[in-house]
């Protein structure tokens, strides 16, 4: 039997299929490109042949990530979990002795403190995206260096430039200024990597006891420059898992395996057109922004409403259309 986990983030969409033993038999990692439904279709198309080849039939589905409610409804998932729990579960299955999990994704970052195999504390970034992957890609565009090459540049630097990293806007002007006065590119990039780490530790990691072993994951963990900066600043060894970007998907697949719900998952059945629509309810001054999901004119689910009225209106709206 196989268990499918899908992690739909703001920047990237990940899917993994695990078998009874928890081994990953299929994996996929793609950009969300602002359309989670389309991205999920693409990752499903990628994992299906891999799962088939391993001889695993998917019997339960788990969904996590910021679009988990939408995708959970579309895939009729058995488990819909927040990404913090999913990541903790995924990492713990691979690294049972871990004490600290650093996670930096496209738009958010979190820290999970684990003791004796149990998550005991966590924190997540607040509104600001300064300590996340989108900050790095924005600065990469500024410097005209592909973000994939950042790591190599950073490793070449011997004297990282100090860059104010607390805020994207300020970091950018600081970066431009430092570039103008002639700092070499590799030092700037290494400086950026340090800025993101400092910002992470000051913001998300504030007041937390960072104890080794440390696992670093999420999209940004693929960047060796940031890994090195973490190692330099914490003075500890940083473990990066090859499947680090898939931990959310693996975790939620494990949760689906542990759950009760079982239903044969037919990949082809989900290759149909879904329709999402958003509108402001207007039923009261709350003006809830209700989002609905429907398939061939049939209402599936809706979110964002504070009261039943929003959903009633949504249903009426769909049947009118």
């Amino acid at each position, binding site marked *: 039997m196989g268990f499918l986990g899908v992690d739909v983030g703001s920047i990237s969409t990940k899917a993994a299929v695990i078998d009874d033993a928890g081994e990953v038999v299929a994996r996929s990692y793609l950009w969300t490109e602002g359309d989670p439904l389309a991205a999920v279709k693409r990752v499903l198309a990628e994992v299906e042949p891999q799962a088939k080849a391993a001889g695993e039939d998917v019997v339960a589905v788990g969904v996590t990530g910021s679009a988990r409610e939408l995708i959970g409804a579309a895939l009729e998932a058995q488990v819909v979990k927040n990404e913090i729990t999913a990541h903790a579960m995924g990492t713990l299955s691979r690294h049972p002795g871990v004490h600290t999990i650093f996670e930096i994704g496209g738009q958010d970052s979190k820290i999970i*403190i684990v*003791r004796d195999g149990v998550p*005991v504390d*966590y924190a997540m970034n607040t509104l600001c995206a300064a300590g996340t992957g989108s900050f790095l890609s924005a600065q990469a565009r500024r410097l005209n260096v592909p973000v994939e090459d950042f790591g190599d540049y950073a490793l070449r630097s011997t004297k990282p430039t100090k860059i104010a990293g607390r805020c994207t806007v300020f970091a950018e002007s600081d970066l431009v200024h430092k570039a103008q006065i002639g700092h070499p590119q590799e030092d700037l990039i290494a400086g950026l990597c340090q800025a993101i780490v400092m910002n992470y530790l000051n913001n998300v990691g504030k*007041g937390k006891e960072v104890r080794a072993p440390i696992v670093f994951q999420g999209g940004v963990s693929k960047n060796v420059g940031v890994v090195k900066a973490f190692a330099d600043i914490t003075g500890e060894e940083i473990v990066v898992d090859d499947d680090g970007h898939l931990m959310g998907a693996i975790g939620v697949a494990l949760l689906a395996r542990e759950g009760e719900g079982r239903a044969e998952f037919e990949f082809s059945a989900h290759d149909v057109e879904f329709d999402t629509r958003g509108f402001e309810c207007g039923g009261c*001054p*709350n*003006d809830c922004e209700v989002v609905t999901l429907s398939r061939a004119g049939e209402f599936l689910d809706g979110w964002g409403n504070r009261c039943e009225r929003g959903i009633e209106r949504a249903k009426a709206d769909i049947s009118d259309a």
Partner: protein
Amino acid sequence: MATSSADYRLSFPHMGNYHIPMCTLSSMLDCEIMVAPKMTRRTLELGVRHSPEFVCIPFKYNLGNFIETLDAGANLLVQAGGGCRFGFYAEVQEEILRSLGYEFDMIRLVGDFDLRKYYQDLRRINPKLSFRGALHHYRLAARQTRALDAVEDFMRKRSGFEAEPGSFDAVHERFLRELGPTPSIAEAAALEERTLAELAALPVEMPVDALRVGVVGELYVLMEPFSNFFVERELAKRGVEVHRFVTVSDMLSHAGPKGSAHLRELIEDAGPYLKYHVGAHGTESVAMTRRLMQAGFDGVLHLKPFGCMPEVNAMAALQRLSRDNTFPVLFFSYDGQTSETGVRTRLEAFCDMLRMRKRAGVSAATNMEVPA
């Protein structure tokens, strides 16, 4: 402008369901009482638009309430104050509202808790008010507040486990309807007793590993569920027994000269984490968190408006307490841009984490005490 008390239409800002006893209290002034329109997102938008940029969020909600109620015809506003920035709300809000062109009168109950001084202020509006009459209204309102707090306290602890969805809410709503008209202290007490019995009789399904979580922090965001995105209800929905200690009755019972003894007790309970009072409810947040930790609670949720200095002071202590004892404390800070989805996600993960800890704690020996 109004000249006799009958021409006044009195209104005040919202906070939870306290508008009910507040109506009872204000009826001593013998004028029409208008409850401000229900809190909506528009309330906050109005408040944010006309407030200083980084003033704390309760100011913005209060101002939004005032604007909406003035638009609906109120001409006499009541605002309290004290403890921190709150002590300066009334004067600044009055200035802002006047410059928006509203005409109204304002009762500012600021400074130290002093019934006699308040009475003098109130005589200005209703010269016929006797001290006995004022005292009667105050005592009845205080009793209604206590009834309200007792019922809602029970709701927080039990409603998460209701066997029949909506059964607790139904009783609660009826209670709220009946509370306002209770004419005497005895009847308010009887209503409280009746409602608590009814709630206790409702069928519940208590799981063995039910979580117990305490909610501490700044009083306004604690007591106005709209401002905290209904976190207590969200916790209850996830099968959590929610405990909260900051209520208006609690504040009234420690008001005046009894306050300093209460503070000393709190500082003692805060143990090594506080030596002095750190302002407003900050000391209580630390003391309560430590008490709950020692009582074997599963975790604590700390709520505050962004930049709330007393609670920021408390946070330094709470972070250390949490780190020293690996006791989970989740911090939420509210400003006009706090995302409701973000709060939900964190809350969900918090409950998951507590449950995992609890399960591990039951099966294996850890440093956590397991509640009896």
